[in-house]
């Protein structure tokens, strides 16, 4: 009898492991490894949210800034604790890892963006989190902190429910499409249920809000405000299955917006993007030996075509980049939208438009800092990074192809996003030189993108870890720690590389500023490539060892 039970337990464990692989999320792995610890963490997360609500409540008549800071600190600490925690190990490590999962909707990036937004918009009260465009631009602005906190509770609870349900479902089927469909349904159900719940929550608009957010609410009476991660959600869904949820998920959002005017919440199951091996589009056939001649054409044709094509067809990477960019650019979009809604009030619209340059700078910094993570050598190449270095390829060629490919795709994206925000705000405020401002903003975005890529490629050389996109989004101690160090390093370097560009565009007038900014952006890219290649030459063996391809004694 005992032997049978042991066998059954072993089989269940094996099934759970298969389920984890089928779902491909470390968070599920954490959950299944100890249901007790999962429940405990869920309770802890709920307790943390309740504490945050209480702290803020106490501060309403006291020191709101201190309360806001405390909440920010709490959220940032939760995120940092989760970031460095591995998914395997004892109960403590698993608990902290699950804390990371449950804290996903309110992670440090949101807190940082929120703090920047609060400063930029001179917000008088409220935890920063409710002022961040992603997490609560709509929710907090329209209905106050209590509703935002309720949404966080729901987010936590529903995340856990979704994960548990996902595990149960994974036991029934390992069919990828079936699991993806199921999780898409969970997302839909989350939206619908929160949309329904929101009807019972009394509105508390304009109480202690920043001018910009109050203007947003005033400007669009009964606004159907977007939920947190509204852009990320459809991308998540797309990563789960195919691109069709990309169409379905926004439709669901629209449906809920239409059905629950005035409120949407922050709840979102923390699903991960996954890349699916399978048939792929063919690589570019780029032969530049003719036009460029000899060696340059050889490597540019082969390596650059490969790197550009990988970035173009790497769905996991698209999702990773877009979700990071969405979080960083959300304040920019939110303020542009607020200016648009306040266009009847010229003073408010103009004030909002004036906030854009500072926000654009903050957004650029965050986005370019992410490039250090996304351009990880092994992120797209995997072990191929080591393979390339066993071929007749110079370090400079290897680094340059990655940096140029990234800059070609990423810098224009940043430029377009910035230009669009400035165009909207400029039109709303009735600025006479909208076209010139828009063009300038677009060029600034591209220059910042180039500078950020230069910074990113240097950190990618120093920390060549795999991006989470390359291992199915599964976090691990290695990627967590490397991500932390690499992220901080990338952010620091990006700051150094981008600030001169920002000074040129914002400190100097006319074409001189634009010209100098562009030169500085391209120079930072070139410097990054040169420095990255030198570092790779000097650290070649460490680089290979980091990819586990040159172990001592092999």
């Amino acid at each position, binding site marked *: 009898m005992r032997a049978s039970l042991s066998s059954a337990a072993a089989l269940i464990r094996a099934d759970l492991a298969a389920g984890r692989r089928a779902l491909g999320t470390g968070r599920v792995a954490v959950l299944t490894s100890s249901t007790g610890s999962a429940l405990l963490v869920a309770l802890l997360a709920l307790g943390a949210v309740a504490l945050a609500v209480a702290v803020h409540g106490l501060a309403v008549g006291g020191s709101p800034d201190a309360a806001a800071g405390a909440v920010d600190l709490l959220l940032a600490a939760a995120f940092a604790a989760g970031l460095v925690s591995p998914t395997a190990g004892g109960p403590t490590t698993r608990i902290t890892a699950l804390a990371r999962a449950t804290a996903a909707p309110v992670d440090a990036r949101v807190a940082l963006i929120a703090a920047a937004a609060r400063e930029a918009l001179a917000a008088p009260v409220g935890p920063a989190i409710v002022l961040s465009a992603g997490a609560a631009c709509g929710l907090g602005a329209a209905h106050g902190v209590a509703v935002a906190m309720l949404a966080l509770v729901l987010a936590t609870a529903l995340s856990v429910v979704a994960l548990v349900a996902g595990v149960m479902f994974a036991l029934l089927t390992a069919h990828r499409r079936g699991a993806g469909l199921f999780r898409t349904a969970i997302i839909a159900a989350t939206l619908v249920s929160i949309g329904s719940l929101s009807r019972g929550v009394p509105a508390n608009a304009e109480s202690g809000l920043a001018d910009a957010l109050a203007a947003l609410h005033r400007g669009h009476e009964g606004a159907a405000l977007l939920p947190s991660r509204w852009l990320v959600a459809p991308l998540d869904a797309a990563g789960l299955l195919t691109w069709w949820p990309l169409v379905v998920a926004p439709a669901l959002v629209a449906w809920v917006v239409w059905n629950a005017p005035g409120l949407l919440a922050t709840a979102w199951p923390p699903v991960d993007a996954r*890349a699916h*091996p*399978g*048939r*792929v589009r*063919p*690589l570019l*056939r780029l*032969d530049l*030996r003719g036009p460029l001649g000899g060696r340059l054409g*050889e*490597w540019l*044709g*082969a*390596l650059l075509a*490969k790197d550009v094509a*990988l970035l173009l*067809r*790497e769905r996991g990477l698209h999702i990773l980049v877009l979700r990071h960019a969405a979080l960083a650019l959300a304040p920019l979009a939110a303020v542009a939208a607020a200016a648009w809604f306040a266009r009847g009030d010229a003073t408010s619209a103009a004030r909002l438009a004036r906030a854009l340059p500072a926000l654009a700078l903050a957004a650029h910094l965050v986005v370019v800092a992410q490039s250090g993570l996304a351009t990880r050598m092994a992120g*797209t*190449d*995997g*072990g*191929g990074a*080591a*393979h*390339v*270095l*066993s*071929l*007749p*390829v*110079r370090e400079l060629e290897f680094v340059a192809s990655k940096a140029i490919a990234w800059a070609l795709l990423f810098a224009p994206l940043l430029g377009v996003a910035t230009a669009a925000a400035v165009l909207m705000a400029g039109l709303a405020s009735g600025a006479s030189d909208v076209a010139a401002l828009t063009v300038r903003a677009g060029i600034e975005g591209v220059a910042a993108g180039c500078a950020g890529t230069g910074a990113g490629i240097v950190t990618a050389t120093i920390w060549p870890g795999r991006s989470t996109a*390359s291992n199915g989004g599964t976090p691990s101690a290695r990627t967590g720690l490397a991500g932390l160090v690499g992220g901080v390093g990338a952010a620091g370097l990006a700051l150094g590389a981008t600030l001169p560009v920002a000074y040129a565009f914002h400190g100097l007038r006319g074409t001189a500023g634009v010209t100098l900014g562009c030169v500085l952006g391209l120079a930072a890219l070139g410097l990054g490539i040169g420095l990255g290649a030198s570092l790779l030459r000097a650290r070649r*063996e*460490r680089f*290979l060892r980091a*990819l*586990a*391809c*040159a172990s*001592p*004694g*092999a």
Partner: protein
Amino acid sequence: MALAWGCSELTPGPPAVVARDLAKVYPGDIAGLDGLDLEVRSGEVLGLVGQNGAGKSTAIALLSGALRPTRGMASVLGIDAARDPLGVKRLVGVMPPGGETFERLTGSEIVTLTGRLHGLSIADATSRASDLLELFELDAEARSRVAGGYSTGMRRKVLLAAALVHAPRVLLLDEPLAALDPVAAAVVRRVVRDLADGGRAVLVSSHALDTVERLCDRIVIVHHGRVRAQGSVVELRQLAGCGPSDALEDVFLKLVGRAPPGRAPEWLR
């Protein structure tokens, strides 16, 4: 299937691959290789045999210019691997250990990319990739899938094809038959033999002694980073004091000074 582009006769000449007092110390004072001396001549297949950690893969990495030696010299066709690693990489075809390759490229793309980085035109690289993958029985469906979903054996086939695509004059193969099915292993043995008969120098590192015995003209036994013995199978048998019917495994154990393995624990029998 014959590879028309890979069978041109080469003139036998001086040793194609030379290592003299080659040593590598990894950070942390971990010795990878400690004064290796060997030569591989054009037209021969040399087997590098040793225990785990003996330094076989390190030797191949040093000879191919992927790593720099701490001491000594490695050269391929007269080019110093430490001074001109790029020049050496152009001449050699390397099959690295394990199955690490581009996880997001298809098998065809990996081999084609390798060919292009060796200076082939797109058309030539594509055509040769197709020939090689067909030779190693990687079907069209598998070739069009990304390598992230490949089995280890499939990855090894792709890596071997990538090592051969530019018809190198020197081949450095690390465990070429590991994880291959019997059919693919037979094909590889045939191809390696053809390449050597065509005048190319081939260095094969392996743990599989029966493979080495069947495939190689000479064998170098590496122990603790140094050459313990070398010669043909017959010469090694004589050196170890073994008879003609003794297995190479017994010869190896005697030459590295190891007693025959003990029996399994009582509880396992």
